[in-house]
């Protein structure tokens, strides 16, 4: 969401200074402070942001980061969602990542409380949009929760995003029209939920 749409518009720097203090401001990546980053620094910053995004996503969805983004990741849907969030919600997305980074040492419930209720409507709504995109593979424009009762419009991010929607796996099922399961799976008890969302199924 653009700053002009924020209920209490702040520039990126103002927000950081006011809410996170000077120490937080010092930790802001170079590309946000106006200094020209080197290509390597830019790549490192981007990789760090992507990692933050995955950890944030794990917090928001309740699904292990290793499941959302395996070390050897054939689909790499995390990058698709990361790029989409940055494109659609630029500054708010950076703000959300910064808030998450600054609070990573706290208990998950406390971080969620900060993001969803204490950081402004734009941040909270974007967090909800991220939950939806991970679960449904569709992008819902961030908006206040009451508006969701009106069947808000959404966009399926891509065919791969549809198959990667976590709602199917949390239901221990598969998307309509696509299944990686072998013939006859419908006659068998599905694996436990933990196999889908908790790491360690390599045993």
């Amino acid at each position, binding site marked *: 969401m653009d700053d002009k749409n924020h209920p209490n518009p702040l520039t990126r720097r103002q927000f950081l200074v006011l809410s996170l203090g000077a120490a937080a401001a010092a930790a802001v990546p170079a590309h946000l402070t106006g200094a020209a980053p080197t290509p390597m620094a830019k790549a490192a910053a981007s990789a760090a942001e992507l990692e933050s995004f995955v950890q944030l996503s794990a917090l928001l969805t309740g699904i292990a980061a290793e499941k959302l983004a395996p070390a050897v*990741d*054939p689909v790499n849907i995390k990058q698709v969602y990361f790029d989409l969030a940055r494109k659609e919600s630029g500054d708010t997305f950076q703000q959300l990542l910064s808030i998450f980074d600054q609070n990573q040492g706290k208990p998950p419930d406390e971080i969620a409380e900060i993001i969803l209720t204490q950081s402004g409507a734009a941040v909270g709504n974007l967090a909800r949009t991220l939950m939806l995109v991970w679960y449904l593979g569709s992008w819902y424009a961030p908006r206040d929760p009451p508006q969701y009762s009106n069947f808000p419009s959404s966009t399926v991010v891509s065919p791969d995003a549809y198959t990667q929607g976590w709602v199917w796996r949390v239901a221990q099922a598969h998307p309509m029209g696509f299944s990686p*399961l072998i013939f006859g799976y419908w006659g068998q008890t599905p694996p436990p939920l933990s*196999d*889908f969302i908790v790491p360690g199924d390599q045993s």
Partner: protein
Amino acid sequence: MTIVKGVIRVNKPFLAGLDRLFLIVLLAAVAGCAPRGGATLTPLPPTVTIAPTVAPTETTVVPVPINPQVTNCNITPPPPQPNSPLEPGTLSRDIPCAFTFAPPDTLDNLQLGFDFNSWLTFAGLNAPADSDALIGQGSGVGGDAPTVWEQWKEHYEIMLPDGKTPAAWGTPRLIPPACQSLATSSAATLGKNPLVLSVVVQPFDTGPLIDQAGEYVLYGISVNRPMFEFLFQNQLYNQAGQANFAGDMLFPQGSVIAGTTGFIGAIMVKSSWKVMGPQDDPSQFHTTTALMYTPPSDNPKIEEACAQKTVGLVGLHVVHKTQTEPQWIWATFEHVRNAPTQAEVDRNSLLADYNFYQPGCAETVCPINQPPPRPWNPNVIPFPHNFTSQVIRLISLTSEVSDLNTSFQSLLKGTVWENYMLISTQWPTDGKSKTDPTGAPFPVYLANTTLETYSQGEVPQASSSCMDCHGNATDTQGRASDFTFIPQRAEKTP
């Protein structure tokens, strides 16, 4: 990629009436002749003339091992980078028994390892079958020769009409009756094991592929000895045998125990061939003289026919079951002049001619990646109304695969094999996943323009993905059949 479902009906199977007990004795007799490696063939003596004079006891019945230990696994490590020069000794007759790679354990590096593995396998399987020479060192033009895998069992020799017992490994090729007179009169040209190519339609009946001369592309499917022995010894070649089979249908796996000692495991190969016409230069293809068998059909009405054709290899799937890749490793190769990529078409960077693309032909005249209109009758050549397939590769090769291809092609320079390229290798990134039996394959989509012409793309469940498709394979009893559709061809016994 998908291995097409097709059937050849043979009215007089080679081993009709052979008593299974005699067959077991025969296998026991040759137990000591097991090949030292999967790429080494040991012909068996003729079978039907042998009859034991004394009934064998239980202790003497020792079938050949389905997946015997070998000592010549190729364990050559991949290069550090795709464009690293390769040692001349990289080419070998020995194939990898399993996937080996050098760290790091990243997606790109693993992909390089699998692609390198695919090229080593390609080199081993395409080595001359009639000598100990390396790939490209055969006695024919451009170092060509009949290859190792062309001596393997073709699918129709295993799944026989009425569920008859197939002939043992090493027996001469089973020739359909309609081809027998031709095979006899051309025996000197065809050799002991001529390929019999009968399939012209791609998977899911999506259509045939028509070359620039209006000829149908022909397809063949072959399996190696461990895969054959698994089907044979477990009597999975008919529906009764499959019904009686109590175990899981899991084909033998390739693995390395230590050093070069290990097990080859099951390998299946699907090939595509174009007829060599006046416009083709056979010195630029691996060629063979094959029997083109057309089974009879009522709808559309097609007469049974057989013809002898010189054909050139244009596509090759190589699929290998290994211990760490229970979803198999799926490699696919093509002739370099098959078709341009979409990117090459877009920037008009085209060769003068292709096997399946006509530069300069307007899309209204030459529709892209569209099957020909029905009826499809391979006896009518050239295809009516001057139809030729206009094929474009929708997913370009990665730069890493292109670099690796360049490295291997330089080793094969001056031979027919320099005209072949790896498209990619699909492998399971999570082979032991409890929730995804396909093992989370990568790349997600993989198609060969001659074998999955009409299902290229990146649409889940619609576009070609080897493991996603073959994960649906079953036998005739509705059981999962370990990523191969071959058991589904088994017929009922009378």
